[in-house]
Structure formats: C-alpha cells, structure tokens
C-alpha cells in the first residue's frame, strides 16, 4: 500500500503541468546559482593568481639584475631602486592569498568582502594599495549574490512549501481523503508515504542538478577534502529539506483550509528565513559591539612623529637599544629619511595591529554567539554550515588570518634587520625571502561544527513529525 501511494503521488505530480513548470524553474535557478558561483571563483582566483605571478616575476627580475651587478638608476625618467635593497622589497606589498576550497562553489559567502588577498609589508598597511581597495559595487552587497547557497537557503524551502502546503488539506477539500481512508490505510501512513514521495523527488532533483553543475563547471573531484565537504553538504541539504517538509505536514495537521495553510507556511518561512536572522544580527552586534573604525585611525595617528625632525633622535636611540643591528662596516647615517621612516612605520604598525586585534576579537565573539544562536533558525544553521563547507565564511578566514599574521612576522624579521644593518640582498637571499603557503584547516573541525548543525536540524524535524502524528489522532476529515 505504502509504495502504491508513493507511486500514485509521483504520477499525480508529473501529471500536473504547473508543478512541472515549477520544477523546471527551480532546476534552472539551481543551475544559475552554480554557474554564478563557478564564475565568481574562476575570476576571483585568476585575479589572485595574477598577483602571485607578478610577485614571483618581480623577485626573479630583481635576482637577475642583482646577479648582473645592477645597482639601481637615478636618471630622470628612469628611476629604478637598487634591486637588492631590502627597503624597497620589504616596504613593497606582498600578497598572502587564501585559495578557494575545492567546494567553494556552494557559496560565495563572505569571500566578496573579507580580504582573501591579504597585503603584507614591513610598513603599516594603510599606506599600501591593499588598504586602498576600490571594492565591489555597494549595490551588490545590498542585493546579495545569486549563488547556490541562496537557492538552497531561500528558494528550496519555498519550493517545498509550494509542494506540500496542502498535502492533507488539498486531499480533504477535494473529498479524496475520505475515500482514501476508507481503504485499509491509516492517516499516518498516507501522510508519510506522500511526504516520502515528494521528498525523494525533490532531493533527487537537487542532487542531479548539482551533480551536473559540478561536472560542467569543472570542479576538481579529486582535490583534497572535496569528498568529505561534498558529503557534508549533501547531509545539510538533506536535513534542511527534511525540516521544511516536517514543518509543512505539521501545519497541515491543524486541519486549516489550503489557503490558510499557504498563509501560515509563508509566514513561518518569512519569520525563520528573513525576520529572525536580521533580529539576531541586531542582538549579536548589540551584545558584542564592534568599536567605531575611527579608533583604528586614532591608533594610527597616535604615533605622531616626523622623520625629518625626530628621525635623528629616534634612530640613535634605536641603535643604542639594539647594538646587534649596528652595521658592521660603516656607521649609519642618522639623518637617513628611509631608516627613520622604517622606524616610525614599525611603531605605527605595532599600534594598529594591537587595535586591529580588538576588532578581530569582537567579530570572533560575535561569530561564537552566532554559532550558539544559529539553533534558533534552521536557515541560519544551514547558512552557517554551507559557508563552513564552502570555506567562504569567517571560520576558515580566521584560520587564514592567523597564518597571515605569522607570515607578516616572518616578512618583517627577514627585511627589517637587513635594513638597519645597511645590508643588501645577495643573489641567494632571493630564494630565502619568505613565501606564503596556506595550510588548509582540518576537515574534522569543519565536520564537527557542521555535524552539530545537522543533528539539530534532524532533531527539529523529528520533533515536528512527532507532534504531527500526535495531532493527526484528532484530524477532522471534513
């Protein structure tokens, strides 16, 4: 009987033209989401790659010139710094790039706003073009991106509700329910069979379209972590789908009319997907307010020294405190503008890093709170999980940031002493210049975070179904 109902439900679904149109529209939207994600990743990684290529080319170029004994040019119109000068390389901007995870296609996430090409220099960053980013059109952040995550989080529930808002009320209103139940069939079984039929159909649709999308967009299936992350994604989507179906049958169990069910379903969707997240966002930023950015500016400007006026005093003090930095052969020129500039910039950098830490901590606090509050709305659970899996959220970025910090330290330690000691880079030194290599976060951490979310989604669904079955005892057939 159970399989008969499932088969019958499928036959009914496919016979309804409006449903087929809806399914095709949904499949196209899924496809478009995947296409956009793939396009974003491709363009964005090309830009990052161009940065790295330019950097290596610059090093190779300078190394070659150094080997040839070129000492720079001061001729008007052809100014070139000494290629072996630790000052010009160290002060220059080096990029540490966060590569996209193999499953980044699942969500653009925060990758359009968080700096995934982090600038590193011995100077304070605000002087560099890394801090002078022109950035994406603000309008784009207002609208949000049409990526796969959007289709899953916002549209998938709507499609589910469109399918099942009248799963019982529809049958009742057409009088079919009474006839069906005159057969040896319980209401619970009927409902379970109908939901199973719709669930299987929908999940298969998402699965097939996504799989085709991944194949077409040329995702590397053998990349490390791809399989684990994809399985996690499948599980999240499964649990999220389950939740919305459970919700639809729960609403149906009250025995309202189809129209009332539709209103109730859309109201619940509205609250869980649109209203609750924005309310929680307000709460989170009220509990852990991020200080105004002007504090960062104040920190930067608190080091208020002039290289020309204060340089001599600062440098002589610095060399006294750090005799190991004293050049071996010659005495440093304490009026050297560049040396004083390095000194002042390092001071500013230190101050700014301290203040920046305050911002980072506050955002981290916010993120930790979100990780707890996410359980209030299934769409937040899913949103967080998908960003986590795609590696385009705050968690992976935090992991990246800590590595950038280390790299920044290594960069400074390599160049700054050389500058004070008035040394030049040797040909061999060019290969020793620190390079950034991102170490991927462990997938077990991702699995743990995402796994908990999935568990809660499933528990919510089971709870709703339990309540539904309880209410079905008193379901009125007319």
């Amino acid at each position, binding site marked *: 009987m159970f399989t008969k109902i499932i088969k019958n439900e499928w036959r009914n679904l496919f016979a309804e033209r409006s449903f087929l149109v809806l399914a095709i529209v949904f499949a196209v*939207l899924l496809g478009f989401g995947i296409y956009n994600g793939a*396009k974003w990743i491709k363009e964005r990684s090309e*830009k990052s790659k161009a940065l790295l290529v330019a950097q290596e080319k610059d090093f190779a170029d300078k190394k070659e010139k150094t080997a040839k004994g070129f000492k720079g040019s001061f001729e*008007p*119109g052809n100014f070139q710094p000494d290629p072996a000068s630790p000052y010009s390389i160290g002060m220059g901007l080096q990029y540490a790039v966060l590569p996209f995870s193999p499953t980044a296609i699942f969500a653009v*996430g*925060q990758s359009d*706003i*968080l700096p995934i090409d982090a600038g590193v220099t011995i100077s304070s960053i*605000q002087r560099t*073009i890394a*801090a*002078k*980013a*022109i*950035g*994406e*059109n*603000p*309008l*784009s*952040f207002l*609208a*949000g*991106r*049409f990526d796969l995550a*959007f289709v899953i989080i*916002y*549209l998938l529930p*709507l499609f589910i509700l*469109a399918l099942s808002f*009248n799963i019982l009320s529809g049958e009742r209103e057409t009088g079919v329910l009474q006839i069906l139940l005159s057969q040896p069939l319980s209401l619970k079984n009927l409902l379970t069979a109908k939901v199973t039929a719709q669930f299987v159909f929908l999940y298969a649709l998402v699965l097939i379209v996504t799989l085709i999308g991944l194949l077409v967009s040329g995702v590397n299936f053998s990349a490390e972590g791809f399989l684990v992350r994809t399985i996690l994604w499948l599980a999240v989507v499964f649990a999220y789908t389950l939740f919305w179906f459970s919700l639809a049958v729960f609403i149906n169990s009250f025995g309202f009319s*189809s*129209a*009332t069910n539709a209103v109730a379903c*859309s*109201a619940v969707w*509205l609250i869980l*997907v*649109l*209203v609750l997240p*924005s*309310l929680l*966002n307000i709460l989170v*930023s009220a509990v852990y307010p991020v200080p105004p*950015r*002007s504090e960062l*500016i*104040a920190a930067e*400007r608190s080091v*208020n020294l*002039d290289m*020309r*006026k204060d340089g001599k005093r600062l440098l002589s003090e610095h060399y006294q405190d750090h005799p190991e930095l004293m050049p071996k052969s010659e005495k440093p020129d304490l009026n050297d503008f560049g040396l004083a500039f390095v000194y002042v910039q390092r001071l500013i950098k230190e101050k700014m890093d301290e203040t920046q830490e305050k911002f980072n901590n506050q*955002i981290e606090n*916010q*993120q930790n709170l979100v990780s707890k509050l996410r359980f209030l709305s299934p*769409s*937040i659970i899913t949103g967080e999980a998908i960003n986590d899996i795609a590696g385009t959220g*705050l968690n992976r970025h935090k992991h990246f940031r800590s590595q950038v910090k280390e790299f920044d330290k290594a960069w400074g330690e390599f160049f700054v002493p050389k500058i004070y000691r008035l040394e030049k880079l040797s040909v061999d030194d060019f290969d020793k210049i620190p390079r950034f290599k991102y170490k991927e976060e462990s997938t077990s951490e991702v699995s743990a975070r995402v796994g908990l979310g999935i568990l809660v989604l499933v528990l919510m669904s089971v709870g709703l179904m339990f309540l539904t079955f309880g209410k079905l005892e008193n379901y009125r057939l007319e």
Partner: protein
Amino acid sequence: MIAKIARKEFIECLRDGRFRWTALIILALLLVSLGLGWKNYSDTKREIDTAQAESRETWENQGERNPHSAGHFGVYAYKPKKPLSLVDSGLDNFSGSTIWVEAHYRNPAKHRQIEDATALQRFGELTAAGVLQLLLPLLIIFLVFDAFAGERTNGTLRQILSIGVKRSSLVFGKILGTTSALFLLLIPATIIGFLALAFATANESLLSSLPRFLLMCVGYLLYFGAFIGIALTVSAWASTTRLALIILLGFWIFTCLALPRLTNDIALNAHPMPSNKEFWDQIYEDMKEGVDGHNPSHVRVKELEEKLLKQYDVEKKEDLPVNFNALMLQQGEEHSNLLYTKRYDEIWNIYYSQERLQEYFGAVSPFLPIRSFSMAMAGTDLRHQKHFIDEVELYRREFVKMLNMDFANNSPTKDGYNYFVGKEVWKKAPKFKYVEPNTNWALQYEVWNIILLSIWCFGALGLSVFAANRMRVI
C-alpha cells in the same frame, strides 16, 4: 455603492484574524526597525562628529613639521549620516564611510560596516524600508487574494452582480476598502516615522529632509497601489482562491526575492570591475607617463624649472626665492588630480552601468524601482555616495594646495625640506564641511524609477478594473 462595498471590505479585513495578526506583526516590526534606525542614526552621528573633531584636533596638534610631511599625515573625512537613513539605510553599511585625505593620493572611501559583521548580516537588515518593500506587499497579498476569487467560490459574486452592482464599482470599492485597512497601519507608522525624524534631527535638517520624506511616502503609496492592483487582477482572473494565492506568492518571490539577486549577478557579469591592483597599476602608469601619455613626469619637472628660472630671473634652481620642491609637489598634484578624476570616474561608470542594468529590470518588478527611489530620497544611494567622495576630493585639493603653497612661499629652494611650521599653519588649513545635495538634485536621477512606479501603480489598478469586467462569475 462604492462606499458601501469599501466599508464592507474594510470591516471584513478588520475581522479577519489573518489580517489582524499579520498587520500587528508588521506594525511591530516597523516600529522596532524605526527605533533601531533612530538609535543607529544618533549613535553613528555622534561617533562621526567625535571622530571628525578628533581628526581635526590631532591635525592641529601634530607638532612642528614640514608642511609636506603634514600633507602625508593628512586628515580624515567622515561621511555624515543622513537623517532619513533611519528609514532606509540603503547602501550605508556597504559603502566606505571614511576617506583619508592626504597628499599625492586620492584614496577610496574605506571602512564598510559590513566588513565588521558576521554572515548573519547577509540575511538582510531590519530597516523600515525593508519592512515596507518586502513585508507590506505580502500583507496586501494576504488581504486581497480572495477578493474576487473568494466571492466566486462562495457564490456571493453572482448575487452581488445580480442585484445590479456595477463591476467597476465593485473593483473601486475593493481598492478603497483594502487601502483604508492598510492606512490603519500606514498612518501611525508614518506619524511615528516623522516623529523619529523630528527627534533625530535639528530644525534646519528636518526642514530639508521633509520634502524627501514626503516624496518617499508618495513612492511607497505607488508601490502599494501596484501590489493592490496586481492582487485584485489575479484574484479576478484565477479560478480558485488557492490558485490566486499561489500565483501572487510566486510573483512576490520572483519580484522581491529572486529578481534583485538575479539582476545583480547579471549586472556584475555584464560590467566586470578591474582588480584593485589593475586600478592602481594604471594610476602609477598615468603618473609616470602623464595623463595623456605624452608628458612624462621628468619632462614636466624640467619645464617647471625653466619657467621659474625665467620668472625670477635667476641662473640656478638653488637661487630661487620660492621653494622649488614645494612647487614641484604642487605641479604633481595638479597633474594627478586630472588622472584621478579620470580613473575614479571610470570605476563609478562601471557601478552606474551595473545599477542601470538592474533598473531596466524594474519593468518586470516594482520592487527594483521602489528600492532605488527610496534610497535616493533617503540620500543613501550610489549617487549620494559619489557626491560625498567628490566633495572630499575637492576639499583634498584645496587642503594639499594650501600646504604646498605655504611651503613654497615661505622657504627658499636652498633650504630643501628643512622648513618646519606648527600650529598656526595647521589652524589655517581648511575644514571639511559636507553639505548634502538638495531634493531636486536627488530627483533628477530618479525620473526612470518614478515613471516605472507610476506605470506599475496605475497600470496594475487599471488592469484590475479590466480583469473584473471580464471575470467569470461562477
């Protein structure tokens, strides 16, 4: 007759539990968002005022240094919060709020609030504008979807028409009834919005915000009119209430939810941005080779030198009574000003092209024109952002020029950079004072959106009359 129908419709709305609950929730959300908007406005305003004052204080107390060093130290310009941002914060959180004003560089606005937020922010923000643009249409749909379809299913439609009620009266009655019910919600919301605005602003900025506020209200009325018309049309056309509801919800999902994102991605793909590095590489290239590629910097410096030697009738640069270094710096500024305008405008033209492409889609979604129009009236759209950064740029030129000229006129070339000044000069530097553009300025860019909104409103209402005249009775 129309009045009677309207009255019946109005009373029915009030008695309807669905309406009462949704209206209450929406009203509550509207009030909360207005309250939050108000708090956000006053907090941010205070922060900005403090920061702006602090920036000036640090500037004036930077101690003795060379004016050019001071030019590198610079000052900061903060974007003032607009009073109407408490209704519609628009792009405020997504666009830079601070510009570092310094010598040599025209810096982009930085510190987008969204950089300091979790992914929750991406679910959207609770603003009064958001409630009005997204949730109110849903309320209208819930109110109106069974206007005709329900009467038909119940069989009352046949009875009403049989006693000689004109179909057009029926439509106008329904429009009037629904609108009055909506006004029960909108009037208190508008009054509270106005009060919030009045409390948040000083008198003169309240006066200048008032036309913008009223125009915004008109815009929203047109938007709601469009949804009432569409909902009535669908209700007249659809065979069952269920079908009417599904179609209307589908329309809402498409126009308010999917289309804004769809058009955004289409626009981003159609008009791609250069990378940050490409942008700055281009600027460095321009600086070196000259804005037109024909007068590289060393040639320009040579020309300046010759001109000055002739003007002061001296043999060597070192004998000049004015500081050649400073004049060279100023010449560099004059040159880079041109190229910055060119390159920044290129970027903004990409933004505008993206925006325009999205606005074309307003022909299929009333949501897009109201979103743009509302932001424009609130002063939180792209045009206002550009206005701010352009004003800051004009200020930067004035600021840097003042420093360079002080340096040039008060020290001879032979002293090089050994010219140090203090507070008395820093105090003379101009202060940044941003004056918001007036309503007419904002309106000139909104013609297309206003036309679209009007077409949507009157077109949809007209269509509902047409549909009612042709609807099936049974």
